[in-house]
């Protein structure tokens, strides 16, 4: 066994992040680490890379016990990690970042070529480069140290499909050279295609090791969710009960006409009440600009936004919220007051709305917040500070705040990025319910299979334009992918049929 951990545990005060982390990775395998949000995957990785030190347990490398007081010591021992959040120093150039780790240009050059990064200007500040590029640079740098175990923590969550493929290529090459890769990913298909075995964590403990060759998706899911929760999860498709929707009066909630801003070029579409409209696009095709304009974060250069038939100009997110358009951004940290409690976070927009600037009616506030929490099944054990919640629960809080406040149109920008299956299901269920009760939902997601799960219709954006519109029935992953790569409406329709 190349790498083994036994009974690793870590707690932060009273909160136990990992209680019993067991992992064994053989030489020459790609090993997946799976589990719901808050199961302890990231903590295990941080312990393996010396980011934090364990409270108990041992790490064995080649059967010998090792200790990693810092990431530098782990790297020296042959464990290198690419983290979920970019770990390049933003105000230094890439060259300077490489010098910090003692990576020579000779060592990294072949990996820059392998990852097709030859054209990136390494004298740019890290801050000035796009996130996907930084992730790949981080990977190239990890590879340059020739680690025996390469750890990829949700690297593909922020990467578009074509860049993810470059990462997989490198991982397979690593395996063929007799080295090992540990992959953390929520994308089941990705894991099935890439990995050999999977270790599943639940509630901070290892609950099983699965051979991916011989076992099915269901086995992993049931391990991840535990015996009692597994029965709750329903098979794909049943999330959307689309028959009910047609009862709702179909009036346009938001109409966008000829919108231009950033790279958006003449975007027009109508979002109906009672529908979930999906937006599909590769990284950077204008979807971010679209959501910024709709949520009042940015003033469009041209075009108009009609809400309930009336043209509106949003000068500030407050205006958009007042018109009933509310945003759930991808970056949870952007939406939440990390130091404050769950209650305060959910009640914030409600309080802001009060005409009366007097005392806050804490009784009614508490009731509305409570019902939102119940509806989304938010785990509130660590509720005194939102930053202590797991990623999935934080995302639920950003949605819950709008449930408690009330809105007409929910704008969700990749709300399920890096979130486990169960939470995803819950979020999609809530989105469907909202649509059924007459609200409109605009949903951008980077995970294309989810369009058919949650949406009634999907628009595909490419190069700042809407290039295709597909019904939920036609929006198969293949059809969406083709359209998202700009392969034309006809081609997309053909792929769907």
């Amino acid at each position, binding site marked *: 066994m190349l790498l083994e951990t036994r009974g690793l545990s870590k707690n932060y005060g009273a909160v136990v992040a990992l209680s019993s982390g067991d992992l064994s990775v053989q030489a020459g395998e790609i090993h997946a680490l799976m589990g719901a949000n808050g199961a302890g995957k990231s903590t295990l990785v941080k312990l393996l*890379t010396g*980011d934090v030190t364990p409270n108990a347990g041992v790490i064995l490398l080649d059967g010998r016990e090792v200790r990693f007081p*810092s*990431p*530098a010591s782990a*790297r020296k021992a042959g464990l290198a990690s690419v*983290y979920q959040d*970019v*770990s*390049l*120093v*933003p*105000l*230094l150039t890439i060259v*300077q*970042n490489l*010098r*910090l*780790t*003692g990576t020579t240009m000779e060592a990294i050059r072949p990996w820059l070529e392998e990852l097709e*990064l030859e*054209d*990136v*200007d390494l*004298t740019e*500040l890290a801050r*000035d*480069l*796009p996130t*996907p*590029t930084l992730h*790949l640079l981080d990977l190239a740098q990890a590879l340059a140290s020739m680690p025996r175990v390469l750890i990829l923590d949700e690297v593909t969550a922020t990467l*578009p499909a*074509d*860049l993810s493929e470059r990462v997989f290529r490198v991982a397979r090459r690593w395996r063929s050279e007799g080295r090992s890769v540990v992959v953390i990913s929520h994308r089941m298909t990705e894991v099935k295609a890439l990995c050999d075995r999977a270790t599943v964590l639940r509630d901070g403990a290892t609950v099983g090791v699965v051979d991916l060759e011989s076992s099915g998706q269901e086995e992993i899911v049931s391990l991840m969710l535990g015996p009692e929760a597994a029965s709750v999860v329903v098979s794909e498709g049943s999330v959307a009960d689309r028959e009910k929707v047609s009862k709702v009066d179909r009036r346009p909630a938001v109409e966008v006409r000829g919108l231009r801003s*950033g*790279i958006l070029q003449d975007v027009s579409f109508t979002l109906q009440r009672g529908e979930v409209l999906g937006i599909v696009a*590769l*990284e*950077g095709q204008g979807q*971010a600009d679209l959501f910024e304009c709709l949520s009042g974060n940015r003033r469009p250069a041209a075009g108009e936004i009609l809400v309930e038939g009336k043209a509106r100009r949003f000068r500030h997110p407050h205006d958009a919220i007042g018109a009933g358009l509310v945003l759930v951004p991808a970056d949870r940290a952007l939406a939440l007051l990390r130091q404050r409690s769950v209650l305060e976070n959910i009640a914030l927009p409600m309080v802001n709305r009060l005409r009366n600037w007097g005392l806050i009616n804490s009784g009614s506030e508490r009731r509305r917040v409570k019902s939102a929490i119940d509806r989304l099944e938010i785990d509130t054990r660590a509720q005194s500070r939102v930053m202590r919640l797991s990623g999935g629960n934080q995302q639920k809080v950003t949605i819950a705040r709008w449930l408690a406040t009330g809105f007409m149109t929910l704008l969700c920008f990749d709300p399920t990025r890096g979130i486990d299956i169960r939470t995803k299901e819950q979020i999609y269920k809530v989105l469907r319910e909202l649509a059924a009760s007459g609200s409109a939902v605009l949903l951008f997601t980077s995970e294309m299979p989810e369009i058919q799960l949650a949406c009634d219709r999907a628009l595909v954006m490419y190069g700042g334009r809407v290039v295709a519109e597909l019904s939920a029935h036609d929006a198969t992953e293949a059809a969406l992918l083709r359209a998202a790569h700009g392969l034309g409406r006809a081609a997309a329709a053909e792929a769907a049929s």
Partner: protein
Amino acid sequence: MSAAATAGRPPGGPRFGRLLRRNAWTLGTYALFVAVMIFTISIHPDYGPFEVQSLVVGALPLAFAAVAQTCVVLGGGIDLSIGAMMAVANVLAARYMLGHDFQTALLISVAVLFGGTLAGALNGLIALRTKVPDIVVTLAMSFVWGGVALLILPKPGGGAPDKFGELASGSLFTPWIPNGILLLVGVVALVWIPLRFRGLGLALYAIGSDRTAAFRRGVRVGPTRVFSDALGGFLAACGGLALLMSTGIGSPLAGTIYTLSGVSAIVLGGVSLAGGRGGVTGPIVAAFVLTLVPADLILSGTDPNLGQVIQGVLIVLVVMAGGLAPLLRRRAPRTTDETGVAAA
């Protein structure tokens, strides 16, 4: 890179343009200094060596305080005890140098500089060990050192040999270049140039920019923090000695104003208070600007009390102008930022 990004660049190649953009603030500080200097000469036509000398002697303590604060702030910290440490260095030197010759004075200076370094390191160690924020630790230490200064020398007094004062006010070569400027350049070059081109300097900028990322890159965050605080203490002690050179006596309260005026100088000099960004020449030039402006006001017959107001307005205006540049860049269409790799 798309065509739109390259089109917006000034002539002279992308590298030159980027160099200009990254150092825009420092260059702006130089321009401000030149403008203030031109104004000074215009209202004071017979500006000569004596005026240059008094400017340098007056600006020297502030310049050292600013460089001290720069070292700490670049590493992502803040030191509110710099003025108080200057005061202690000042009264210690004044008390023990009184009546001694130049050689002894130099020995005492070395001891004082050593003590300053230790005091700075102590700030860093306390903040690191107790996990109390450095702003709180150094605020508390500023009271401690302020009290110590009063214990050493309850009222202004002491002194230093004349030759010691000439380290700042004399002139070795021409009267147009007072020794003070050589001293300042010498000390800063001695400390800064080796730092800038070594791993330690890089580590300092790295922890100021993003502590977690720096840790993951393999930077030893704790020792680097203590080092930056110790460097700040060393330069604060330099400032205390410079104060003695310029006034000739020790004063337990004279140092305290330099904490906040030092912060003003680094803000004016383009050092980001969030850490990780800026250099050392900007704050030095800014220290000269901040010394020159009140002098000009007296020369032009303005009420000296108005000087404070004008200084404050100046700082706000400069920082506003500095904040404008990135804003203008953001307004421009940002095609490259989002598409980067896909386009490349």
